[in-house]
C-alpha cells in the first residue's frame, strides 16, 4: 500500500530529513509512525501526500510511484488518500456539512451521492446533528472528528493522520484512536504519525520509528483489543 525504498530527502537548505529510509505498510494495516519532532516524520507524510518528492529512492503509494507522477495527476492521486491534520484545518466560514463535502465537491461526485455520503461520514464520527453548525462553535474533539469525517467521506483506501491527537486530552485521544480502528476494521489502511507514546503502547500496533532521518521498522505486534 505504502512503500519507501531507500528514500533520501534533502531540502534546498541542505538539511537531510531522510537518510536511506525503507519501510512498507501493507493493505489494511494500522501503523504508528513515531519519533521526536524534527526526526523526519513530517517529511515521510509530505512524501506520501506528494507535497514533496524524494531526492533519491522511490515512494510508492496505492501502487503509484510518486516520482513519475505528473503534476496534473496529483489531484486524482490525493483523492485516494484521507488526510487528517493536527490542527484539523477546517474552514471556519462554512458549516460542518460543507467542510465534510469538500473532497466530494472537488471530484465529480453527483449531488445526490454527496448528500448521502456526507451524512454517512458525519454519522460515523457521531456528529450527524451538527451538520449546520460552524466548526468554530464545536469543541476541539468535535472539530477533530469533523476533520476525520472529511478525510473518510471520499472513501479513501489510505488514512494518513499527522498528530491527530496532539491537541486532545487523553480521553478524547482514545476516542479518536478507536474511531481510526473502526476504519481499519472496514479495510482502510491507517497510518498515524504521533509522539504520544502512551497511546502507542495502549493501542499496541505496529510501530515505525524514525530517528534522525533513519527508519527503524518495528515488528508487527498483535492487537490487544
Amino acid at each position: 500500500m505504502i512503500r519507501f525504498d531507500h528514500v533520501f530527502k534533502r531540502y534546498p537548505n541542505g538539511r537531510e530529513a531522510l537518510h536511506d529510509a525503507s519501510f512498507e505498510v501493507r493493505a489494511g494495516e494500522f501503523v504508528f509512525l513515531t519519533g521526536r519532532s524534527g526526526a523526519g516524520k513530517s517529511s515521510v507524510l509530505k512524501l506520501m501526500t506528494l507535497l514533496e518528492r524524494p531526492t533519491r529512492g522511490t515512494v510508492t503509494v496505492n501502487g503509484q510511484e510518486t516520482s513519475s507522477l505528473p503534476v496534473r495527476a496529483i489531484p486524482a492521486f490525493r483523492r485516494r488518500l484521507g488526510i487528517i491534520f493536527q490542527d484539523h484545518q477546517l474552514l471556519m466560514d462554512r458549516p460542518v456539512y460543507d467542510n465534510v463535502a469538500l473532497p466530494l465537491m472537488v471530484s465529480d461526485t453527483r449531488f445526490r451521492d454527496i448528500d448521502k455520503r456526507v451524512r454517512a461520514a458525519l454519522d460515523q464520527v457521531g456528529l450527524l446533528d451538527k451538520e449546520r453548525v460552524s466548526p468554530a462553535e464545536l469543541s476541539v474533539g468535535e472539530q477533530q472528528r469533523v476533520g476525520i469525517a472529511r478525510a473518510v467521506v471520499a472513501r479513501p483506501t489510505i488514512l494518513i493522520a499527522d498528530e491527530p491527537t496532539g491537541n486532545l486530552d487523553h480521553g478524547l485521544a482514545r476516542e479518536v484512536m478507536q474511531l481510526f480502528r473502526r476504519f481499519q476494521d472496514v479495510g482502510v489502511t491507517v497510518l498515524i504519525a504521533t509522539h504520544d507514546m502512551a497511546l502507542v503502547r495502549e493501542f499496541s500496533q505496529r510501530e515505525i520509528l524514525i530517528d534522525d532521518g533513519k527508519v527503524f521498522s518495528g515488528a508487527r505486534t498483535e492487537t490487544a483489543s
Partner: protein
Amino acid sequence: MSSPITYLTRHAQALLGALGRLLRRPLGSVLTVLAIAVALALPASLWLLVKNAQLATGDTIEKAEQLAASARARAEAGTVTVISADAALEEFRTYSGFGAALDSLQGNPLPHVITVKPKPDYANPRGVESLQKYLRAWPEVDSVQVDGEWVRRLSAILDLLREVLLAFAGLLALGVLVVIGNAIRLEIGARRAEIEVTKLVGGSNAFVRRPFLYEGFFLGLLGGLAATGITALLASALAEPVSRVSALYGGTYALSGLELPEAAALVGLAALLGVLGAWLGAARLLAKIEPRD
C-alpha cells in the same frame, strides 16, 4: 462519473460563490470596479473623439467635392475636371446602395461639381486665394472651397490620434489586467488556507481557479458597464456644446455617442480582461502548493 450536469453544477457553484464574495465586501468590489471603469472610459472617450472627428470631416470632404469653377482659361488653373450632377448621382446610385431611395426623389439634388487643381507654380496660398476669388465672383457658383491640404493634414492628425488611441488603449488594458490581477491576488492571499486544504483533498488547479476566474469576469463585466455609463454620460454632456458650435458654423452636426455594438464590445472586452487578469493573478500563487524535487 463526470456528467455534464455535474460539471455545470460545479460551474454554477463557482459562479454563485464568486458573486457572494464580491457582495460580502462591497467597498473593495466597488473600488475595483471603479478603477476598471475609469481605465476603460478613457480609451472609450478617445474613441468617440476619433469617430466623431471622422464623421465630421467626412461631411466636409463631401462638401469640398462641390468645389466649383469653370475656368480652364485661368492662368492658375491646371487640371480641371467636371463632375455633372447626373454623373455624381449615377455614381452615388452605384456605390451607395440607395438606388431605390434615389428613384423616389423628384429631381437631382446634387449640384454640378468642378474640381480645379492649381498649376504647380500657383500651388501656394496666394495662387489658390486668387483662384478662389475669381471663382467666387461667378453668380452660378454656390460655393468655393479650398481644400486638399487641410483635409490631408486633418486626416494625418486623425491617423495620429488613432495611433495614440491604440497606444492608450493598450496601456490602459494592461492597467485593467493589473488592477484585476492584484484584486484576485489579494483575495487568494486571504483565502490561502482554504486553497491549501482544497488542494490537499484532491482539488485540481482548475477547480481552485474557477471561482477566481468568475470573480475576475464579474469585476471586468461591471467595470465595462460602468465605463460605458461614464462614456455615455460624457457624450451626453458634450452633445449640447457640440451642436451649438456646429450651428455657429452653419452645420447641424450631432455628436455620435457609443452605439450598441461598440458598448457591447467594450463590456465584452472588459469581461475578457477580467478573466485574463484573474488567471494571471492566480497562476503564480496556485502553483505554490505543488511538490518540489
